[in-house]
């Protein structure tokens, strides 16, 4: 791996140079036209033929040009998976560090880090030592990106199963101080702490498992227990920190709640989950609601609160898979209002293309529709639900093509669907006709009863369709 050494040593020789304040590149100046002449879209790279070179800045321009060209070659090689060729070009590109005039967001040092780690990841992904030594040099190359590089390094170690080394790296990065942190750096620092906390949590849960296992045998080790508690403290502090900030923190929230629950702090756990799910500053993450519902279920919360939590999830994501359980739960309920909600929920689920061929969902609907039709009460519920779907459900669910296909592919699905179709669209509907005929032909008993059922309750169809 000669080239690696080459580009590593080269990189080490060049001192990190602070971004010098310089003028913009001359070539770009020619493009700063009047506002009317600017493209409607801010483009990443203007086409080559638009560039016009200014002669006075020849020298810098040449350097800039060759730098650009070199970068293009690297890009080209990377996109064709020619890692070695890219590495060869990268050794030349390292010269770009010498004149790092750029005030741009991404200077050569960051590019070298990105490209270098991409090459090393893909080309010699088994050789962790090489990668680590490269990253160590990259860390010293720029202060602005120190934390980012540390974080990415830790990710790389974690993905390769080197948990302990990653932990060491994260704690080292955590102790890094360099003046005031920028907003971005602050975020990165919080993330580093959170990941360190997460690893603490894993150690804790490991030790917990050990203790639980040996605890059964009457074996107690106070040192292990102590260590476990210190892990808990470290994990809890840093995890608590990050989940206050708006974001998607599924991993951290789960870990933190687990910690709290183990130590019996249910109140705090509940608060954390409520905040994660219902704080308006957070994105509407379905998982937050799922975790909250799961927590409620675990702790035997009253049905009412569970239903209200699921109702909110239904409003946010009507197509969530928990809605099937929600519907089953509501169907069993004695309250009319809840059964009504159940029907609404299952209709909404089946609106989505992803549930189109789900037997479970269709059987839920079929069961409830059958119930209502037999009891002959609340037919207006079905009517209300059907009104907004009347014009597109027949084409979406009950076309002749689908009847044929469902019958061929999934008989029980076609049975459930045929029942719903028979009730909603009457016995002359294409879907019902096709499936019941095929079912009778195939001598399947349930289809015969289905036919009887639909014919018997044809009045229900009339009242649903408003005739």
């Amino acid at each position, binding site marked *: 791996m000669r080239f690696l050494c080459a580009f590593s040593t080269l990189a080490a020789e060049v001192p990190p140079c602070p971004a010098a304040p310089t003028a913009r590149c001359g070539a770009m100046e020619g*493009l700063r*036209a*009047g506002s009317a*002449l600017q*493209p409607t*879209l*801010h*483009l*990443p790279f203007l*086409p080559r033929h*638009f560039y*016009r070179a200014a002669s006075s800045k020849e020298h810098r321009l040449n350097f800039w040009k060759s730098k650009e060209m070199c*970068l293009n070659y*690297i890009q*080209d090689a*990377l*996109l*064709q*998976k020619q*890692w*070695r*060729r890219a590495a060869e070009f990268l050794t030349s590109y390292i010269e770009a560090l010498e004149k790092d005039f750029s005030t*741009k*967001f*991404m200077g050569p040092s960051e*590019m070298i880090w*990105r*490209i270098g*780690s*991409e090459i090393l*990841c*893909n080309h010699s992904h088994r050789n962790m030592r090489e990668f680590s030594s490269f990253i160590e040099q990259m860390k010293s190359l720029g202060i602005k990106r120190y934390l980012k590089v540390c974080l*990415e390094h830790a*990710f790389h170690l*974690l*993905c*390769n*199963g080197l948990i302990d080394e990653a932990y060491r790296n994260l704690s080292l990065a955590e102790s890094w101080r360099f003046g005031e942190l920028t907003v971005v750096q602050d975020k990165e620092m919080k993330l580093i702490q959170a990941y360190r906390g997460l690893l603490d949590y894993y150690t804790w849960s490991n030790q917990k498992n050990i203790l639980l296992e040996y605890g059964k045998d009457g074996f107690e080790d106070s040192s292990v227990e102590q260590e476990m508690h210190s892990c808990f403290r470290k994990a809890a502090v840093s995890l608590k920190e990050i989940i206050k900030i*708006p*974001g*998607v923190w*599924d991993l951290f929230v789960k870990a933190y709640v687990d910690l709290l629950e183990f130590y019996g702090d249910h109140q705090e756990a509940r608060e954390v989950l409520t905040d994660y799910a219902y704080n308006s*500053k*957070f*994105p*509407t993450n379905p*998982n937050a609601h799922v975790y909250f519902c799961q927590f409620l279920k675990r702790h035997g919360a009253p049905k009412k609160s569970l239903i209200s939590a699921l109702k909110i999830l239904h409003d946010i*994501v009507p197509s*969530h*898979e928990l809605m099937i359980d929600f519907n089953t739960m509501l169907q069993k309920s004695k309250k009319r209002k809840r059964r009504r909600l159940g029907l609404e929920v299952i209709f909404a689920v089946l*609106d*989505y*293309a*992803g*549930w189109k061929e789900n037997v479970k969902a269709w059987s839920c609907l079929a069961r409830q529709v059958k119930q209502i039709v037999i009891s002959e009460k609340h037919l207006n519920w079905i009517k209300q639900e059907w009104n907004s779907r009347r014009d*597109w459900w027949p*084409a979406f669910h009950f*076309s002749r*093509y*689908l009847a044929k296909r469902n019958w061929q592919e999934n008989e029980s699905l076609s049975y459930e669907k045929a029942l719903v179709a028979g009730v909603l669209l009457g016995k002359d509907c294409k879907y019902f006709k096709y499936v019941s005929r095929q079912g009778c032909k195939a001598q399947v008993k349930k289809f015969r009863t289905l036919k009887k059922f639909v014919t018997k309750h044809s009045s229900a169809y009339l009242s649903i369709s408003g005739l």
Partner: protein
Amino acid sequence: MEFPGALFPSYFGSGPPNDEAGPAPAAGWGERGEVLQAGSGRRQVLPPFVPLRGHEGESWTPAEAAAVPLLPPNVGCWVPGVTPQDILYRGVLHRKLRTGRSGAALDFAKQLGHFFVDHPEDAFSSLGRLLHKNFHLGDSRLRKGSARDTTIRMTSLVEKINHMEARRGCPQHPFTSHLRLFSHLCRDWLFEVPLGLLADCVHEELLLQWTSLLFDDSSTGGALAWLPPRDASSHVGCLVYPGGLAMNHLYFQDVVLEEQPRARGLPVQFELNGRIRQVAAARVDGQDFVGVRSDYYCGVWRMPGKTGAAPSSLQVIHTDVPASCLTVSPHLSGELSVCTQSGAVYLWNVETGLQRLRHDPQTMFFRDHSPWRWSDFTAHPRVLSCADRTGILCLDARAPTSCHFNFFKVGEEAKCQQGERVVLPMYLGRAHPCQHLVATQFAMYLLDERLPLVPVLKWAHMMKAPPLLADIVPGESGRSHKVLLGTSHTQELLLLQYTGGSQMACQLTGPPQRLHSIASCLPHLPTQLPHQHHLLQQRLSIPAAGLAAVKHEQGQQDSLLVFQLSEAGDVFYQTLRHEAAPTPVPDQRDESEPAPTPDKGDEAEAPPGSPILLGSEGEEQEEEEEQTFYLSNLEVIINDEEEEEEVVATPAAPEEPEPHASPRPAPDVPSAAATLRYRRWLRALLQAWVSSPASSCGSGRPTLSQRRLFTRKELSEVAPSALQQYRLQLHQAMREQGRVQRWEPAPEPPSPPPSLEPSALSSRLTAAWKGEWGAMGPSGSTLQRQRALRERRRQQKRNRAHRSLSASFTSSITYQSELSELSEGGTPRTPPATPREVVVCSQPRTPPQSPNDTLLSSQELQSRGIPKERRRTLRDYLSMWTEGPQDPPEAPSSITVQRCIPSSQSSQSQLSSASQPRRKRPRMGF
């Protein structure tokens, strides 16, 4: 439809983007993004963490060295696109402007000039007609008393204008005060359309052209659609694409997927009344619906159930404002969504008609000037997504005003950069019912409808132009989905893979991969003559207009077919093969050979097979006058009459076993089949080019027809043996790649005709040759020129009646007459001055009257309806133009330069100087 149990961690902010980052050329590399614990908390599972951006993906390798043409070229389309050179000002003024603030100066004055010269009737007709009587253009003095009062002589003015024209491009040409005065005087009243108004309009139009040159979003979505086979067992799909002269024909072409895809039968064709911008297709209940968008019309077609029947057109709608989007619903048959540039979004049902869901000329989240709108379907058949440059909104078609939610925002929510804009949204329903792709000029985002505003995946794509084309190939049974992103102007094509969405969170797997662009096949085409090479280069680098990908399984081999459409209507394809077991060495090229540099176009060898063509040359030549010659590797098509046997002869060559064919993963040389396709495509293109009107005008190659050189009668007059000899000479010269010598042993070259003028000219030229041009100075040269002109005029007066007007009444007449004169006597009158001169160059004229001068005699001019007083002017005017080509041969002795231009070029120069259409037009309408 499960939702992943845990998502990758990310911050969530709101508000405008904070990130001031500009375009970062390497932003997409080297990051893991975030990590997530895979599995259910058991630490024994390895690896326990998975990255957002993984490095292990499926390995797809290109089967060919470049993109290969699938269909014959779209031969009708020769209209060249607008280039920056056409509309930008280059010259003195520009240099001044560049120091100022405005960088790109639009040269609307040039366009105005073109308009005045090309359409004088439209520009000046009425005043030209009015002033007709009052302007005298002749040389003679005004005699009649009454005429003298109302008429002015404009002769000198016209002369000056002509001088200006002659010195166009000369940086030091002085404006004469006379001319300036005149133009100042007539600026207000001479033009049909007031000059200011016209200039405003032209400038406005140029501005539009310039913006569309910088970024043209009209072809967003792409105009190529693949309709998959009706049942899995058959391998016949259908490709829908535009073609024809103005890309206004819609083609439905059956394509058989085999080892190499091939077209089956002739395409079904529909002629539409507008350029096709977008073709969208979707399959609902086993039926394919194809939506076609042009600027003001949108149409929908349904594919027939039976094979062999023609697709049926269902409905067409007309919009007042150009439509910017048309998508076909994948859920309900006959449903489409249409957006117009006025900001309206319609749900279009073939049965129930149009339903307007939204109308908002303003953009959604912040102010942006672009009128571009897009809309697509979502997992819920009644919910549509509406996009503009600032973000995406989802709304329910049943209650569009009340039921909606923000789906994507250009802002801190998705961690966008400043200046980032939505370029292409796409519903990925075929891969996962809830996923959407959003491409901006910097990054691609993957969004899940169930988690709005937060992209589940983001990757900086680093493409040089905004991706306007995209397609997805869903991966079945846990395999990765393949996303293809394509740009229009730069023809970039990127293949990305991702997994997840249901049980696991979305992950990008494997490094992105660049696929071949259409232009990449240029080095693999047979070597061409420079002008043909240039033509090819232009043709192949035309922006891409469509993209379609299809997965095709053949036995054990998985392959991915990518079809590309160019704006000229050419369809190319490339095949990628899946390597089932990824080898431990991820780098395919490392061990085999040093990687080639990207710009290796010149060193790319011609495919083996082309030199073999030399063999068939001999006997064909003997048979009869042969128009096609093969000089080692060069294909020279002299005339447009292509012999049938040639067509048969050419493809025979590549069918020979390919010596270079090897099972390497990424070949550098196209396979035999591909070579055959290249050759066929190239031949069709060049044939069409030669016969197309575009080849004869503008930058096209001048064609030299033998029929115009000699009539059959003339040829028969020459002794057959002589004819044979000439022919042999011609062939030999071509074989040696030399020049044709004179027809016959030249008689004594006659002394150059006595003339005063050439001495001045020759001295000037000699001076110029010695590099003293600058020393002479502009004043000196103009003075000399004026003196020369004066001398010339004096001489012209002397032989007043019978003037030697040569060469350029119109190009064709002159040309023919000159040549007929040449062949009439059997011997040329005046052999060329330089011994190695080409035959077909302009001959120096002796002052005495030559037979063809009758052409320009008074009678002739009269018979052509030219008024008496103008005949003179016309002659003068025309004689100015003969000056150029005539001068050099007149003074060969003083010029030391040997004219050694190959015959075709010299004739070209003459032709172009004589046949410039602009120069023979009357100026300014009088």
